[in-house]
């Protein structure tokens, strides 16, 4: 009879064969804890968990791959997702180059504007990274093998 941790490890090693192309940077986030799916509890409800504290009910969403990827890779910069981080990084890189170009050929005051924009877009990149990638990093997701 296998223990629960042995079963989890075998599932993990099976999954790692199929997902060898995936990044291993989030492996520490993998908990593989059983998901608690309270039937009939609408999203946003809270329930008494530890006797004295109310915690939000974690429900599951059954959606398509298209919906998940569209939400994550939406290139609008204020979406708080991966696409926003990518767009903000591109804009900050372009402004960083334009800063030197305008400093050399136009005026130092115009270069100052591009320096400000570089910092602004880079902070947008950090915000999108924190919300879209860091915050939702360990959310459980199941897909048909």
């Amino acid at each position, binding site marked *: 009879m296998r223990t629960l941790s042995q079963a989890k490890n075998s599932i993990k090693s099976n*999954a790692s064969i199929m997902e060898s192309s*995936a990044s291993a940077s*989030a492996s520490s986030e993998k908990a593989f804890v059983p998901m608690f799916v309270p039937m009939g509890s609408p999203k946003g409800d809270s329930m008494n968990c530890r006797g004295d504290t109310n915690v939000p009910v974690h429900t599951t969403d*059954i959606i398509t*791959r298209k919906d998940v*990827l569209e939400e994550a890779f939406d290139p609008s910069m204020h979406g708080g997702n991966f696409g926003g981080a990518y767009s903000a990084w591109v804009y900050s890189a372009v402004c960083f180059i334009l800063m030197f170009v305008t400093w050399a050929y136009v005026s130092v005051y115009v270069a100052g504007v591009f320096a400000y924009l570089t910092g602004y877009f880079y902070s947008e990149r950090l915000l999108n990274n924190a919300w879209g990638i860091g915050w939702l*990093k360990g959310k459980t*997701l*199941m*897909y048909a093998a």
Partner: protein
Amino acid sequence: MQYGETTVMADLKHPQLRETVRYDYLMRYLPFWLSRRRNYSYAIISAVVGLLFLLKGIFIVSVVAFAAAAIFYSRVGLSDYILNSQRKIILAE
């Protein structure tokens, strides 16, 4: 007599549902999204280059550039096929 949808079960060596985390799932499909963006950008750049050389009168370069634009644009659909899949996944809120 009506029959519902049936599923053919086979002896699988792995569980049918895989559990992973959102980040790893996104990293799995990130190359498709990046290739889509790159191919789309290269198609537009090639079309602009082709138009410029067409106006310049250097037709051999413009023909090559338009061919490259067509090839790059056709490759956009390959990524779309993966990214716009309607396969169901279960995501914890």
